């Protein structure tokens, strides 16, 4: 895999490779978030998912999230890899690794990263069910933006 801290890939994600990118002598904690493909959502059975991305911009926005984390938690190191293409149930879609000197910050920063991904990073998930398929995010119940788009200050 790539040495990039912020990566969109169509390959299987190695959790260890993402973690290794944030190892540092000053870190006392490394927190990982692993997002996986769930079979049942609101009673509907997913067969598989397809992720697509505006790859160059998505990597840029992941890097922006890393910058935002370092502003809030100055000693944090961040690496994020998100997979695109076809993913089956239980496959890993995203791995976030955050190292910080003390454990509390690593939890907070990791949570911050995944929530921001769902706001500003141009990655889309297409659900494939037994009875149809749909790009998520374009359903009102799923859209992260009550107004249809994020408020300006969130970008």
């Amino acid at each position, binding site marked *: 895999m790539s040495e990039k801290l912020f990566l969109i890939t169509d390959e299987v994600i190695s959790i260890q490779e993402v973690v290794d990118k944030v190892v540092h002598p000053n870190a006392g904690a490394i927190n990982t978030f692993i997002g996986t493909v769930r079979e049942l959502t609101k009673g509907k059975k997913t067969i598989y998912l397809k992720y*697509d991305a505006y790859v160059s911009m998505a990597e840029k926005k992941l890097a922006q999230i890393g910058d935002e984390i370092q502003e809030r938690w100055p000693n944090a190191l961040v690496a994020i890899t998100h997979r695109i293409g076809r993913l089956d149930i239980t496959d890993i879609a995203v791995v976030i690794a955050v190292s910080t000197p003390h454990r509390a910050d690593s939890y907070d920063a990791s949570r911050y990263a995944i929530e921001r991904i769902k706001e500003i990073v141009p990655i*889309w998930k297409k659900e494939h069910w037994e009875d149809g398929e749909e790009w998520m995010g374009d359903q009102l119940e799923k859209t992260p*933006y009550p107004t249809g788009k994020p408020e300006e200050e969130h970008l």
Partner: protein
Amino acid sequence: MIKVLFFAELEEIVGTREFTIDQTEMTALEVKEFLKKQFPTLPVDRAMMAVNEEYVEETDVVKANDIVAFIPPVSGG
């Protein structure tokens, strides 16, 4: 020429990811209005716009060789 990119649902409706507009300067809003005429069923109002990989407002100006992307609500993670 202004290059336009469509993703996800928008790409499926248009049938292609890339589209060009033969103009040298437009506001983001004018780009949006132009595309609404071209593709009446396209829900561009539900998408954010990015120019050269940064989110923009409708008043921002787009010039020749810029890349405009329509970003429907995202669903990564």
